[in-house]
């Protein structure tokens, strides 16, 4: 319709790059809605007429047969509109994501305190809750296994144990100059997303359901609800615009709540909502796995590891859920950044009568890394060196390492190791050496307060280890006014994924981001999606959206070349418009012309990660597309009379590849660090001997508060382009920074170790609560009183 705009010639066009494209610190797309309270979460959606609210009645027993479940009084309670139990499930009574074993409703047997027994639907949640309490339930208690040790003693596993092995670890352990053995207990972690789990189900024609769910995995919700109702996948449509936090906790487990809402709506024909309050959420849903990891390491006088054997056992809870892949990732990260020549890694996936543990930022990797970082520190204290020096001589070598010190225990060659550069930068910016000396002096001069310092690295493998999940799709429309509708399979949980993907599209078309409408994730726009997890959200969906943009750009280019009779190769999309020959055409104008010329302005885009493969049988392969790296130095002060402590200063250098949005990536680094710090310090999950979780609300479960943030926190992104062809050479940043928090844990141990002049490692288990810290102080002081007593690490 319009011919070249602006009346300027191509020569005059500024080579301006679009402002909100790749590399710009664009604000989170919902920032204004967040601060004004206008961002809608599932519980904020306008409630439909006739809405029912659902309460889940939960098992009070960790392991028991249900002898009698009499719900007459529940059904008779005034206001109760439906009561649903196992026998009311038309399809499969199971929401297991990968493997069956997670009943929607217990059927004759309960296996954890909090397990869903039946659901009550009423017009107000108070009615449903009161009615649920009227059930007559008779249990026959069975022996309950609560801890990892209980399960190991009973050979109770949800999945078979696995082993990685290379070389001759036993022989080299026996020959090593130094050898130490030990074990570390690493606690779990509740996700504590601020928005608890919720699902809203609406019924449509033909019994079809529309489900709003706070989930990282809408496809899983869709498929699960279809299975539970016994209907085809196409009968269910799942939508999520945003979550109030996910952190892995909304990958597999929201399926339970969506399924129950789907069942209530299926049976009543009325819309239904299931929103958990905080205590129910913490009781019913799984957490980060807690671990018991034993180690046996042989090393030389310099602290170089010659052989190591790990045995890692995790509490999976009552079912497998995602525990297979989670424990695999522990195995993949027990090396962290270190070359382990003769190595054996055994992984036990323990079945206990507790909630089924699940994905949590890092997905089993962090626990493995805590263990090897503990080992390194113990070696350092043993050989009398600064732990950083011991780290350095054990790091993986470069891609062309003549000694071959660059192959992981799963036989993947590390070709992109940039840790030496990162560590070197961090040592300088954090002034490591001088501060180490200052801390030694502080500790000499202070009797009651002690400082600790630790630098720990992160090397984290990026890709789903279940290879098939490394795929993504996008759907893109350009409307005839030139506005762009963007949809993809990724979900927004606060990490800024929607913003980053929109930036990628803006970059391709060289249009500003406000032209792009970011839309809710729904299963009827992009099917068969993978969870937004494994830090892969932007790598996968960004590339899928980019591919969609490239397809449309190709069509537009082809059309313009023909329409204006110019060589397609010379057509360029710029911030000023599209340059076609000697003309500058506004993006809108080109779109209108293309529309009138009957060019399709809608497409899907697809991406699957190249290069990855893994043979689970042999334990060999290339499970990761690339690694993300980082390192942190933490300084802490410990009160050795109370065990209380503060983190005084943290310096971080973190690898984001060529960052798509430095502000958002920095936010992930900072938030991830604090979350990792919380996991290893004040966040303590306490189950009693009956399997009841006693810390099920923020009054008893303490995530970091504002004042726990280190007063000095220097974060530096390292933005070297990814050596692999990831989207715009960026790197995944969701999970890796969490493990920077390990530096706090090791610094606390370091501070306590000063009590015994660093001759002994205090071996504090995680989380290092003030109690554990004080008890470790007492232990070291006691031993110090008896200097002739030999230290044993057994």
């Amino acid at each position, binding site marked *: 319709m319009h011919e070249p705009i602006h009346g300027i010639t191509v020569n005059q066009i500024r080579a301006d790059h679009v402002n909100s494209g790749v590399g710009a610190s664009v*604000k*989170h797309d*919902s*920032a*204004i809605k*967040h*601060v*004004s*309270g206008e961002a*809608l*979460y599932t*519980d*904020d959606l306008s409630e439909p007429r006739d809405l029912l609210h659902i309460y889940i009645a939960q098992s009070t027993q960790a392991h028991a047969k249900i002898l009698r479940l009499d719900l007459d009084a529940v059904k008779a309670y005034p206001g109760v509109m439906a009561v649903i139990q196992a026998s009311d499930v038309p399809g499969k009574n199971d929401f297991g994501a990968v493997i069956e074993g997670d009943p929607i409703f217990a059927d004759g047997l309960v296996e954890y305190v909090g397990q869903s027994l039946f659901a009550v639907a009423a017009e107000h949640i108070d009615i449903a809750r009161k009615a649920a309490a009227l059930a007559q339930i008779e249990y026959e208690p069975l022996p309950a296994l609560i801890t990892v040790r209980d399960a190991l003693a009973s050979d109770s596993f949800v999945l078979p144990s696995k082993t990685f092995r290379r070389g001759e670890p036993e022989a080299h352990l026996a020959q090593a100059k130094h050898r130490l053995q030990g074990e570390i207990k690493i606690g779990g972690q509740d*996700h504590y*997303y*601020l*928005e608890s789990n919720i699902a809203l189900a609406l019924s449509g024609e033909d019994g079809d359901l529309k489900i709003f769910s706070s989930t990282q995995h809408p496809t899983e919700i869709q498929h699960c609800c279809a299975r539970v109702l016994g209907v085809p996948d196409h009968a269910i449509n799942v939508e999520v615009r*945003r979550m*109030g*936090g996910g952190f892995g906790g909304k990958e597999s487990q929201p399926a339970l709540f969506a399924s129950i809402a789907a069942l209530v709506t299926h049976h009543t024909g009325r819309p239904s909502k299931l929103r958990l309050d*905080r*205590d129910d959420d913490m009781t019913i849903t799984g957490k980060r796995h807690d671990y018991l990891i034993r180690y046996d390491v042989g090393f030389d006088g310099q602290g170089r590891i010659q052989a190591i054997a790990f045995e890692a056992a995790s509490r999976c809870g009552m079912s497998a859920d995602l525990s297979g892949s989670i424990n695999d990732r522990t195995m993949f990260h027990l090396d962290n950044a270190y070359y382990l020549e003769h190595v054996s890694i055994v992984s036990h996936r323990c079945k206990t009568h507790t909630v089924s543990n699940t994905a949590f930022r890092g997905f089993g990797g962090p626990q493995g890394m805590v263990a090897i970082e503990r080992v390194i520190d113990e070696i350092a204290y043993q050989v009398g060196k600064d732990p950083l020096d011991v780290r350095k001589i054990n790091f993986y070598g470069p891609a062309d390492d003549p000694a071959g010190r660059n192959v992981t225990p799963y036989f993947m060659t590390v070709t992109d190791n940039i840790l030496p550069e990162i560590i070197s930068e961090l040592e300088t910016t954090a002034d490591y050496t001088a501060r180490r000396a200052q801390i030694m002096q502080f500790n000499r001069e*202070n009797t*009651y*307060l002690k400082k600790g310092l630790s630098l720990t690295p992160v090397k984290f493998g990026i890709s789903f280890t279940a290879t098939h999940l490394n795929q993504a799709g996008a759907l893109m429309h350009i409307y005839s006014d030139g506005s762009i509708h963007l949809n993809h399979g990724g979900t927004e949980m*606060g990490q*800024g994924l929607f913003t980053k993907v929109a930036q990628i599209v803006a970059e391709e078309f060289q249009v500003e981001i406000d032209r792009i409408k970011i839309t809710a994730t729904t299963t009827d726009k992009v099917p068969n999606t993978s969870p937004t997890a494994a830090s892969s959200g932007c790598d996968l969906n960004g590339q899928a959206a980019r591919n969609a943009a490239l397809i449309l750009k190709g069509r537009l280019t082809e059309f313009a070349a023909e329409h204006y009779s110019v060589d397609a190769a010379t057509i360029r999309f710029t911030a000023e418009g599209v340059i076609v020959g000697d003309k500058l055409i506004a993006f809108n104008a080109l779109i209108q012309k293309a529309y009138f010329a009957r060019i399709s302005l809608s497409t899907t885009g697809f991406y699957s990660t190249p290069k990855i493969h893994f043979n689970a049988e042999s334990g060999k392969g290339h499970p990761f597309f690339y690694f993300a790296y980082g390192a942190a130095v933490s300084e802490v*002060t410990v*009160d050795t*009379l*109370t065990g209380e402590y*503060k983190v*005084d200063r943290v310096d971080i250098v973190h690898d984001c590849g060529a960052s798509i949005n430095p*502000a*958002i990536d*920095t*936010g992930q680094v*900072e*938030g991830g*660090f604090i*979350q990792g710090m919380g996991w290893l310090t*004040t966040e*303590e999950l*306490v189950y009693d001997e009956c399997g009841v979780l*006693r*810390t099920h*609300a*923020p*009054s*008893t479960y303490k*995530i*970091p*508060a*504002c*004042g*726990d*943030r280190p007063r000095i926190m220097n974060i530096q992104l390292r933005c070297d382009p990814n050596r692999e062809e990831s989207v715009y050479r960026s790197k995944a940043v969701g999970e890796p920074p969490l493990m920077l928090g390990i530096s706090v844990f090791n610094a606390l141990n370091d501070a306590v170790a000063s009590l015994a002049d660093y001759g002994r490692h205090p071996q504090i288990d995680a989380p290092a609560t*003030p*109690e554990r810290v*004080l008890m470790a102080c007492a232990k070291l002081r006691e031993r110090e009183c008896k200097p002739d007593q030999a230290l044993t690490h057994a």
Partner: protein
Amino acid sequence: MNTLRFLLGQELIELESVSPTLTVLNYLREEEKRIGTKEGCAEGDCGACTVVIAEVVDDRLHYRAVNACIVFLATLDGKQLLTVEDLKTARNELHPVQQSMVESHASQCGFCTPGFVMSGFAEYQNRLHTLDDLPEPQSDEAATTHLTQVFAGNLCRCTGYGPIIEAGKSWLNQADKTNQQAMTEAEAKVIAQLKAIQPQVSKTLIQAGQTYIQPNTIPALADALAKTPGATLLAGGTDIGLWVTKQHRALDTVIYLGGIQALKRIEVRDGQLEIGAAVTYSEALPVLIRHFPWLEEYLYRHSSTQIRNSGTVVGNIANGSPIGDMPPVLIALNAEITLTRQGGQRHLPLEDYFIAYGKQDRQPTEFIECVRIPLLNSDSVLMNVYKISKRFEQDISSVSAAFYIELDDQQQVQVARLCFGGMAATPKRATHCEQALLNKPWTEATVHAAAERLGVDFTPLSDFRASREYRLAVAANLLKKFFIQQQKPNQATQISYTGGLIHA
């Protein structure tokens, strides 16, 4: 007469019937469809539901951030309730607190964000209008400390707080720079509206068999309690709120103390600091710190801004909790309470109020009118208080301790009152330990010997907060720390909640 009246934003709301246990949060979300205010925990710990209550104080509006999840709607009589929906200007511009948050990338998932915004908003408004001298340009360090106090009751799981603090520095600065002592025209209008709806008489509101009574004088309170002995006495509601949201208890009759001006007194009389039953921590804090400077660290760790804005000092006593943080301090200070009933009054040493777990020396028709704390006026008194918890801020103590020692000229211990929380079923003095100190020289040997006696005084429980062993070890170490701090004032002996080191 029996109508609840308050302003929701600028709109006058009048309710003739209201459940005494309807929370502000449920009212906002379920009835007003103001969905910007979020439920994160329903127990006053996460701050996602933070709203602001404005009240007329000395002809000016005073803004308080509170947790909507545990504030009952009926207690808003005569007040203004502001939610995140009220902050944008008529021209749809963001409030400076909101704008700063956007600029600093201070939201990720956004669910906690409205709560942070409201905590910041209350602080901003009070600061904007402060009659006090404008603060010196704050150091970065001081601003961070201050903002940490402002936000101690707001949990964020995504950001790590850094960008929120950065935003805070920006709006703090903006509030200080644009400081305008006078209220705006809009605020003046609100003041007039609020004055018109100030409750002048006692009120009773009934819904579905539940009764809410808001007496406006002490005799009216005594009357009400005489008629309904054992009724629930509500002051700040920071505990009672949880009876409703967590234990799902139905309360038949609730008598609210907040409408009685006479219970809001905090003053020094006859060498004693008297704190009325309706005085909140926020109101008491500056006065307490003035008289007992060593309480500052303790009180900031004790609770968040939102909790201090609601919770009362006397409520912390009255509920009889073994882990309330104020009773050990008050017992060590030899405080006394006044119990009032229709036609009578008695005075009781606070120590004697706590009989056993869940049992206090209070008749069903009695209420605690006030607590009286003798002021310290002797240099020979040594005193300090300690709170130990997993997290510095907004955490329930595993152990709290308050030590009061009087020495004679020869440095012999004349009086020892050592009181602990978290060590027994009630806040309790360590009598054996005290005996081991009395008439002994104040030396390390004496203190260590006395600390040994704590094992005789206490058999603490092991629970999810701490083990018995830890509680005993910490209790003994705190006594040692107290001694060290008196003896070696130059030695760094404690970590402040603000991150610095404390030299006694």
